[in-house]
Structure formats: C-alpha cells, structure tokens
C-alpha cells in the first residue's frame, strides 16, 4: 500500500524495517511514530484532517495484519507432537523426560500443618469434613442464628458476588450441614465429632498480619452433657499436642450469635513462655480463637433437640499458629508463590 502523505509513507518504511527485527512482533503497534501521527491530527488544518486520519488508520490496519500473519506463522512453525506418545520422537536416551530431584520438592507449610492439626483431631476421635468455597447467606449467617441486618454480621467483612453468593468468612458455614449429616450418631449414643479445616475469606486490606484469604479449623462436638469444661479441656489438649509442650490457656467472654455462652481462647506464647516477645506483641499471650456452646437455635435448625443434646464449637485461625510455630514474619508469604519461601519447606 502506498501512502500519498509523505510523513505517513516515511513512517511506513521505518516501521516495516523495524518490524523484521522485532522479537515481540506486536510491539510494532506501540511504536512512537504511530502515536505521533495520531497526536498530530488535531493540529492540522480542518480540511486536511480527514485524509490524513484515514491514511494513518490504513497504516495501522496494515501493521495489524502483519502482526497477525507473523502470529499465524509462529503457531504453524511450532512442531506438531504426538500427544499419545510417552515421550517425543528421537529423544536421546539420557534426555528422556524425568521428574526433578526430589530434594527440590516441597509441601506448602499451611497444608503440612493442617495435616498435622487434623491428625491430632483424628486421634481425639474427630472426623474431617472440608468446607465449600462459595456458599449462600443461609449457611454463612441465617442457619447460625444471625437475623438479617444483625450488627454481628459486620464483624465478618464478607465478600459477596453479584449473584448474592458469599465467600465463606468462617468455616462455620459447614456447621448446619455437619450437624444434619452426623446427627444419626446421637441415636447410637455416639457424639458428633467433626473438624472442618478450610479456606476462608474476609474483605480486608492485606498487610504483614492480615490476609483476605486464610485458613481456619472449625470443630464441632455434640452429645449428651457436653459442656464448657469439655470445650476448654479439648482445646487445651490439642494445643499441648500441637506445640509438644505445656501451654497455658485462659478465656475471655465474647459474643457470637451462634454460641451461648461464647468465649475467646487465649494461650500463653509458646515462644517466650509469657515473658513477652515480638510474636505476642510483648503481652505473653496470644488470642487464638472464638468458641462456645452451640446456640440452641442452631441445634434446632439442624433438627437436634437442644434439651436432650448440647455441644460446643470453635473456629480458629491456622495461619497464626503456623506463623507462631515457624517464626514466619509476614502472612503474605503464604500466598506469594515465591520459590524462596516454598522450598524452605521441603
């Protein structure tokens, strides 16, 4: 294509020449010459603008088709392969595909610790159920005794999709389902004992101590005469096994609509043994989780008679425990995908 306007013809010569050398062919469309031509249009005499504009557009179209052609060529030039074969043709014996040195491999520390946590609860007689990662308002709030517009909903900073689904902000979204699915055990004089490890989401800004995506372990235990003392003893036993040492615990009253009474669980910092260090912000204590006796309305909604059975539930953060255990300084490392971080956990 020949251009009548000199500037444009010159630009074409320069650009086609450069195009041949370019590694990433699409970059030609970002060339400063092309931008300059477009920019100059408003400063032209009105009578010239139309002709000039249409030639610049033609130049752009021409370049675009060059880019497209080049792309088609590369795709075709890629060697066809037999996807049914176990290795490529003419592969040298010593260069057959192989996995990497196993020393390079690693398991994500959060997943490894979740395994460890879950294993302790298995040994204590809990089964394991995984939570959903997209759910509805009923399981996030309503089935847990949060009426609509209840101010306690604000504490959960929940992500909501345009369709009204929610990203679970706690693993308690599974409570109603677990109670329903396991309640037959109560008739056999067994407890419902289930832990729910999984991913939860809160709509908050990320910094060294806050993540919008993190892990919780929920626990549910229902039976005859299950009580607050049982709850505290269960969590205390878990912590001693997890940290393999004596950790002291204390509670503070709290409020959650789905437990009555509600408690917060605080443990002595396993790093400094109450002396105060950077892990526990010098307080010697670490706030770990919320827990309590399952509210009778929650049991009722799952078809369990609260006069006959009682139960406790808790939901605790896993990231925090793992950070404490390994001295990880920044919660953002967990989801950074950096091999420098991941390969430390081989």
């Amino acid at each position, binding site marked *: 294509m020949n251009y009548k306007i000199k500037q444009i013809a010159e630009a074409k010569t320069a650009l086609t020449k450069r195009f041949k050398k370019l590694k990433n062919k699409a970059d030609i469309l970002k060339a400063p010459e092309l931008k300059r031509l477009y920019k100059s249009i408003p400063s032209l005499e009105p009578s010239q603008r139309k002709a000039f504009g249409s030639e610049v557009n033609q130049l752009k179209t021409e370049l675009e088709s060059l880019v497209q052609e080049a792309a088609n060529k590369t795709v075709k030039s*890629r060697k*066809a392969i037999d996807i049914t074969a176990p290795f490529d043709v003419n592969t040298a014996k010593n260069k057959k*595909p192989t996995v990497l040195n196993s020393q390079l491999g690693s*398991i994500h520390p959060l997943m490894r610790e979740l395994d460890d946590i879950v294993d302790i609860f298995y040994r204590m007689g809990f089964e*394991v159920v995984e939570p959903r990662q*997209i759910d509805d308002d009923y399981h996030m709030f309503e089935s847990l005794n949060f009426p609509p517009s209840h*101010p306690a909903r604000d504490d959960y900073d929940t992500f909501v999709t345009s369709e009204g689904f929610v990203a679970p902000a706690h693993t308690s979204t599974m409570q109603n389902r677990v109670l329903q699915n396991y309640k037959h055990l109560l008739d056999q004089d067994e407890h419902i004992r289930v832990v729910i490890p999984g991913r939860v989401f809160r709509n908050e800004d990320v910094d060294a101590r806050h993540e919008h995506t993190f892990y919780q372990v929920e626990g549910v235990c229902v039976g005859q005469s299950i*009580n607050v003392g049982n709850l505290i*003893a269960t969590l205390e036993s878990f912590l001693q096994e997890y940290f393999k040492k004596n950790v002291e615990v204390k509670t503070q009253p709290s409020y959650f609509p789905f437990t009555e009474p509600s408690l917060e669980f605080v443990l002595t910092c396993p790093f400094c043994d109450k002396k105060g260090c950077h892990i526990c912000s010098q307080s010697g204590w670490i706030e770990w989780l919320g827990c309590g006796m399952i509210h009778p309305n929650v049991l009722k909604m799952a078809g369990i008679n609260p006069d006959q059975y009682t139960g406790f539930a808790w939901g605790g953060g896993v990231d925090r425990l793992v950070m404490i255990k390994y001295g990880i300084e920044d919660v953002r490392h967990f989801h950074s995908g950096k091999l420098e971080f991941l390969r430390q956990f081989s």
Partner: protein
Amino acid sequence: MKVSLNWVKQFVSIEMPVERLVDAIGSKLGEVEEVVDWGARYKGIVIAQIKHKAQHPDADKLAVYQVDTGTGKDVQVVAADKNLKPGYKVAWIPPGAHVPITYDREPLIIESRKLRGVTSNGMLGSANELAIGSHDQGVAVLDASLKTGTQLLDLFELDDYIIEIENKMFTHRPDCFGILGVAREIAGILGRPFQSPEWYKTMNLKNNGAQNAQLACDNQIPEFAPRFMMQVIENVNLQTSPLKIQSYLMRVGIKPQNNIVDLSNYFMQLTGQPTHTFDLDKIKTLSSDDPPVLGPRMAKSGETLKVLGGKSLKLTSEDIVIATDQKAVALAGVIGGQETDIDSKTSNIIIECATFDRYKIHASAMGHGLFTDAATRFSKGQSSLQQPAVLSKVASEIASFSGNVQDPIDNKNSAAKPYGTIATTSQFINDRLGSNFVTSEIAKLLQNVEISARHNNDKLEITVPFWRQDLAIAEDIVEEVGRLKGYDYLPKNLPQRSLKPARRNQFLDFKAKLRDNLSSGGANQMLTYNFVNGELLKKAKQNPKKAFRIANALSHDLQYYRLSITPSLLDHVHPNIKAGHPTFGLFELGKSHSNDDIDNKLNLPNEHELIAFVFAAEEKQAKKSFDGAAYYQALTFLSHMLGYRNSSQVLQSCRFIPLKKFNLKQQPWLFHVAMPFDPDKSAVLENKGQGVAVIGEYKEEVSSVLKLPEFCAGFEANLELIQALLPKQNYKPIAKFPKSHQDITFSISKTASFADLSAAVNGFFVDFNKKTDCQTNVAPSDIYQDATHKYVTFSIDFINPRRTFTTAEINVLLNDLSEYLKKKINARRA
C-alpha cells in the same frame, strides 16, 4: 466502649489495683483493648493564683503575669489572654509537663522560653488544653476557693483510668453501652451486690398522655418505634456545662457543647439510652399543626435531610425519620437534623427519648456511613422500659440550670412486653458448664447484678430486669453464671468417648497422596488466591463473564472467582524464573467455580476439586536438559503424581484425545480449564466420553503475555474424577522362574499415532495373557522418526509361572505379534 473508672466508682467501690481489675474484666466481662492512665497527663500541673499583670513590652497581644504556684515564690508566665486579673485561680503547666490535650497524640511538652524577649516559665492552660472542657479561647479561670498549689489531678476526679472494652462483646448487651451497666457487671464479677440509683428504677411518669398544649405525637410506625416519648422545657438557658461534666465527657471521647447537649450525652453515656433535643420554636415553623405534631415515620424514597454537621442525606424508604406533618427533622436513632438544632437563640426545647427497631437503625447507619454514638447504642436494641427514667432525669437536670418542665408525652406500643421470666434448674446450668454449683450460689451471682432469682431446691425462677432484654432463654442464664464465676474456674474434663475410631476422610488422604508424589518429584506446592483480576482471566483466554464477580472487592486483583487454577500458576512462572530459578514444577490443589455451572437442587454453584501443575525451564536450561517437547515433561509429572502402579492403569483406562477434537461444551469446568492450552499441542484425558484432565502446552498468546519460557507445559485434572479411576490393588504372584526379556521395534507411518500401535501391541498381549496364564509386561523404550516413518521399540518381559520361556517360544510369539500388527495397522517389524 470507653469506661471511666472513676465514673464507675460513683456506683461501686473498688479498692483493688487497676491491673487486677482489668484482668478480672478481661476474664469475666470482655476483652480489654486498652487502658489509659488519664491522670498521667496532669503530672506537675497545679492551681496557681494571678499576683500581678503587666503588658508585654514588645508585643501588644501578650500579657506578662506573675503567678503564685504555691511555693511562695512568684513565677513569670507570658500569655495571650490579657483578661486575667490578680486573684484569679488558673491551672499552671510548668516547664517539663505535658499539655494534657496533646498527651495521647503528638505530645507537646512545655519548656521555659523567651516570648519576644520575655521569659515565660510554663503556660496557663485553657479548658481545652487541659482536656477538661471544650472552651479554647482564653485561660480557664477556676473556682476561686481552690487552694493554690493543689494538683489539678485532684479536681474533677481527673485521677482516672479509661478502660476500653471491645464493643463486640456488648453486641447483645445494650445496657453495657452505659457506665451503669458496666458498673453493675463489675460489682457482679467482684462478687458484690449492686444497687442502681433510685431515679433509674422509677418507672412511672405523672400525667403522661399523647399530647399537651405545646406538642402532640403521631407515631405512624409503632412496630418499628415501640415507644416514643417527648418532653418540652420552656425558657431554658443555654450555657457551658460545669467543667466536671465536660471533663467526664472528654474522657470518654465526646466533645462538650452546651449544657443541654452535654446533659443529653452524659446520660446516654451513663444509661446507654440516647436522647435528642430539638428547638421547639424551629419545629413550630416547620409544622402546619398547632400544637405541632412530631413523630416517627418511614422516610420517602428520595426524601432529603440536612443533618448536623451539614451533610445532606438522600433517604430511602428503609430509613426511619422523625418528622412534622411537613418535614423530616431527624434521621431516627442516628443523627439530628440541622434545621431544628439547638443554638444560642434557643429558649424552648423538646427532648425526644425513643426506642427503635435495632435492625432498621443498623441498616440506616451502615447505609449512610454514620456511625454515631446513638446508632451504636440503638442498633444493640435499647430497652423501652428505661425511657421514662432517663427522660425525666435529663429533663430535671436541664431544668436545674433554668426552665420549666412540661408534662411528658408517652406514645407506646401496647404490644411491647414488660418483664420476662425464665425458669431453669441448677442441673441445667451445671450440665452445660460442667460445674457443680449449688442453687443458692447461682442465685447469689445473679442477684449481685440485680437479676431477681427465686430458688427452691434445684429450681430457679428468674425475673429479667428491664435493662436486660438479651435474657430470654435458660442458656442465657448459663452464660451469666459461667461468666460471673469465670470460665477459667470451671473443671476441665475431656469429653468421655467410646473407643470407636474416627474414620479418615479418604478424599483428603487421596489428595495428600498426590501432593506428596508431586513433591517427591521435585515439584513445589503453592497456594494462590481464589480471587483473580479480570485481566488475568483474559490473559489466559478465559471469559470473565463466566466467572462469579465479587461485588464488594477492595481491589481489582480480587474481582472474580477463578475459573481454573492454571492461570494463577502461570502468573507465578515468570517472577520465579526472574528470581533465579531456572527449572521448576509448581502445583496447586483448589476449587473452581463458574456461573454456567450451578447445582439447581442446592441452588449453589458446583464446586470442582482440581489439581493444576506447570513445568517451566528457562531457555538455556531447557536446551541442556531436555530433548523434545515440554508436553512430555508434563506427562511425566502426571504419571509420577498418580504413582507408578496407578499411573499405568489409570492412563490405560483413558484415551488421550487431541484437545482440538474434544467437545468441551458438555463439561463447563473442563471448558474453562482448557482455555489457556494450545489445541494443537494438548490432549484431553478421556474416560468413557468424559474429560478428566487437560494436559499440554499453552497458547502462543498466553505464553507471550504471561512471559512464559518456550519450554513450559502442564496439566489440570479433576480430582474426584481421577479418584474414581483408581484401580483396586491387583496382586500378581511373584514369578518362581526368571523372566525373559526381549526388545522389538515396529515401524508405522509418520502420521500414525503412537497410541494406534501401542493399543494393538497391548491388545495382543492382554489376549495372550488371558489365554495362557503367562504374564507379559510391555513398555516403550525408544521412538525414532525419519522423513517417512516412526520406529517404536518396545521392551517386553515374559514371565511363565511354570518355567522360563525359551528363545524359540519368544520368537514364535513375536512373529505372531508381527503378523498381527501388519494385518491390524500395517506396522512392520524393523
């Protein structure tokens, strides 16, 4: 909730050190967020008397004072306030002391310095600088009777601690949004009986009707405003409040304004019940009725209201307003309107004292972003039964300055329940706490916090006090008892259980197995977010319109639920290469969701458990270590992931179908998974018509925009479908006789696929094994290709359970195989 300890001490005596009290509050009432030593800011500040005043020689706007600070020696202080006269008592902030108001943020410490050549030793504080009042024009002139040299700390009970208790704990405790409620609880946790002041327990108002000569009430929404009370005071006198009241308000974070607003705030802080004051004369001008009619109604959608502070609100039909017949004058329970505000010209006022539906108030506060003290309290659900006491107290306190209190107006929904009762037993309580409390002990705990508890043997009959609307069921009493006793003092016993083992979650174990296999192959497990930027979806050739969009995301990076895991992995390839890792395999287990894939029964999106893997090697490394296409590297990892035994069986139960020939539309999750993969260099792993995984290299455009190296491939598989393919353990007896081994090479046309040949070879031997009870294991060991043909070498083990195969037998068998392959697929033995 900020609690002034000295305010609490007006109602309950506390002797223990503040640290111990804070511990007790933490374990028996709620988390203490912060303790502020309020008195610390007053260190060194004393009452001084002005002795002599002189004009500053070089500054018209400054005066030079000689003050007596109680030491007998006069101190020279320069001040901008020229109105102080000898004999006045003021607060002197000596050099080295803090200006109290600056103490918490950017502390300002006074020093001796020259002001225009005259030395000023310290400073004379204004009420605001001293954090005892709002007035900031001029030095605070204090009571003349004060003794010179007295510490300011000794005035107004300033030697105080402010204990901030987490609001969350009080979500169901509207009473604890008042000092009175907190004081009652503190008495309870210290094991002492509490007595509310007499005025608070007075329930009856005289002459309360629906209207009087000055005002009438029209409550259009009794269901959302169960009680609406008003009281007119005529001829009020607006002035600044006494410094003591002002200083108490400042301690808990409220700015003092004038005696009327301050008293309204003071009693809100004390009782939790907000009141609002209107200028009666302004209300009259906005009303066509005589007397004016005021009351709550739902706002009209689009109605506007200018509120205190000047902000103009656009209301919705969910907001409650207080309105005359003409106009809304306040956003109920949240904030007053500017047009009817109290100002210096006000002489007649209306005090409104109401209760509203807590959820409506909460929604209004959230909707308009107005988190006022009143909204915080109303959204917890204040008791309508304390309104008469609070209203008459506020009115009489305002009138104690000046003014004539008129008869109150009381509009109440008769459906509102007064006192509730709860019947329970000590066994019920002990069962749930794991405790062994006797009934009288339980009753005493409750009575300490003014909850009447009649008891008879095991039985307890509890009458709920009017400020405790949260107490409704027996479990609420369990909470009271456990909390007031302290949960930490309960016996800690593990639940008694049977020895029945807990069943392991097999899917979880399966996933862990795959994860461990990949990691043993040198790959690294990562975690990335479920939420991705729409741009990443586009880069990976996925359609954001199919992804669930987060409506309230803080950042664009969290715009969509991801459609598959591969794009997140690919996003981390280039950064890791750049960070100096030449070769690596990354994988992640996670879930995918898309809006074209809904479980209509559950009315929830289907969730697919997926595992994605990507292998990448930068150019130099790839040339050095790998021959052939990256595709096969991914395939090697797929097979390693499944495990040696499983992999051959799983892969043989599936077919590798070229991606471009597979109909993805049947399985939405698979469709989204396949998008980043190059249709010419990828395969769908298919079993019985269903795709279970996609494996291959990535589209040229995907590679280019995500800066992937040339040698890069991966897979993404559906874990549940893979699990279903896992073969049962299939044991074969160990051969008693040595196995024989033979390699054999066949050639096929270059365009034929390896699978055509290997399927025929495998078919032949499966048949042979069946017929003979012999075992043959076949594995390809080499594929050579020239201009026209492929030459595939198979390495074959022959095992006979009765003896070793002879060479002659093997030759016969291989000849049969050659004949068979020639007929079947035109393959020739090479």
